[in-house]
């Protein structure tokens, strides 16, 4: 099961890289929640930068084509550090390191866009892993001009 859980995390990043949002949502539980957080040493507070339930993230994806967005590809590099399975609760907690790179369309220069960690809660209902919750804890706060695409 641990391998299947790791593959779920890796696959979720591959699908976001490919901007295959339907494919990404297919990996998510009906009660999926997605959050991006960061701590600000300037104001000495935790900040929430994105927080959506499943319907919110679906709306976010659906409305993307109506917006002007930076077309530069984002590429996620993830390493799963720990997988902790709670069989009684049919759930697993996964901690992964996250690096996101941005590649310019003109010339193809790649640079580091953000680093942080993924804290995933994986549902194991019926023995099939689904993302129930993803919390992205960013170390990087200078996200250049930002992005419309979840990390």
């Amino acid at each position: 099961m641990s391998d299947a859980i790791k593959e779920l995390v890796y696959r979720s990043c591959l699908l976001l890289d490919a901007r295959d949002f339907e494919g990404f949502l297919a990996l998510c539980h009906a009660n999926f929640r997605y959050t991006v957080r960061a701590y600000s040493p300037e104001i000495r507070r935790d900040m929430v930068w994105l927080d959506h339930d499943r319907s919110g993230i679906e709306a976010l994806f659906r409305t993307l084509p109506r917006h002007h967005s930076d077309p530069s590809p984002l590429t996620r590099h993830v390493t799963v550090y720990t997988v902790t399975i709670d069989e009684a609760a049919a759930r697993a907690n996964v901690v992964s390191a996250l690096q996101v790179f941005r590649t310019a369309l003109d010339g193809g220069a790649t640079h580091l866009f953000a680093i942080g960690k993924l804290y995933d809660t994986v549902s194991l209902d019926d023995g099939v892993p689904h993302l129930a919750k993803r919390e992205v804890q960013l170390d990087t706060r200078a996200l250049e001009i930002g992005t419309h695409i979840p990390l």
Partner: protein
Amino acid sequence: MPRNAAEWAERPNLPRTHYVDGRLYTDEVLFREEQEKIFARTWILACHESELPHAGDYRTFSHPAGRNLVLIRGEDGAVRAFYNICPHRGNSLVREPAGNAKALTCIFHAWSFDCRGNCTGIARRKEGFQDRLAARDVGLRSVRTEAGPGGFVWVNVADDGPSLAHYLGDALGALAPRLSEPLEVFHFQKVHVRTNYKLWHDTNSEFYHDFIHYFNRVTGMQQPGYFERRYAPFPNGHVSVGSMRVRYDQYEGGQERIGWPGLEPGGWYLVDLFPGITFNLRTSVLRIDTAIPLGPNEVLIELRGLGLARDTPRERELRVRDHNAIWGPFGRNLHEDFLAVTGQGASLRNASTDTRFLLHGREENATIHDEIGVRHFYAEWSRRMGRSSSDPFAEASAP
């Protein structure tokens, strides 16, 4: 029809007040002059009082005139600002962007200073300086500091000049009654952008660019009242924009917002303060932009989101949600604004790009797509710089 090189160089057939010379965004000489003639003589918003709630709390600030400052709250409750420089050997006194200290002690040679800027300790002074130098001779460089509407802390690196109240005048008049309750910063972000600071402030000073924002088109431009919003210019280059009722429910997934004391439902007031500060009170959230120019084509923008200090956890959660929907790093509008100004930054990265003139000539009776806000900014810029914004090097033969 397309224009050849000579035609491209011709001045627009508009009044000189209705366009700007592209070199205002690229010229190094103009940039250095702006730092001294504008930023070193103007009140600048440095932080909010909620960032320094306790005695000894400090906060650093990169002042747009180039000075590095530290603001610190004293035992008497007053916030004072100083250069963040040890007068001994020029080391930075504090390195973290915020913290708390009973005294500011330089890690280099252990000189220490109190919250009023007095030197309170010179390590082995008697042995090294004998009677040639005393603590009273080496106090910190103080910077004028005043509290403004809403609890914001303003600084002015010039020793003299008008008070903050005189500088602001009535520009915040529409907002001030709505900023009477204690506020709290919940969002802070620094964004380093390759563009000129004026291009960011220009964007905040005209709503014609709502065409880039799908969110604003469906919740604002297509709704009653949008085209009745009016600009009001104020002395010293400031301008404010009147309100309307924004229909947040018209955006998919959008929801009505919880509102703000004294603000009508869906209300939205915006005030642009010369030379690069924007107060943006949009229904449930106050956003503050502070533009800190780093070079002709480089600006650091400090973005703050504020709610009420008395917010319940649920109220704060809703304000944060509203903020992030359009103004967060993943928000719909902020990213689009950055796309626009970085596109300008690429086109105006230096003089060789030959971007001759930028237009701000729309006149619509000072309503929302009138570019009066931008014109008002450049009138003040010209006054302070002693140069015409449409002809900064006085090359044209006739006015």
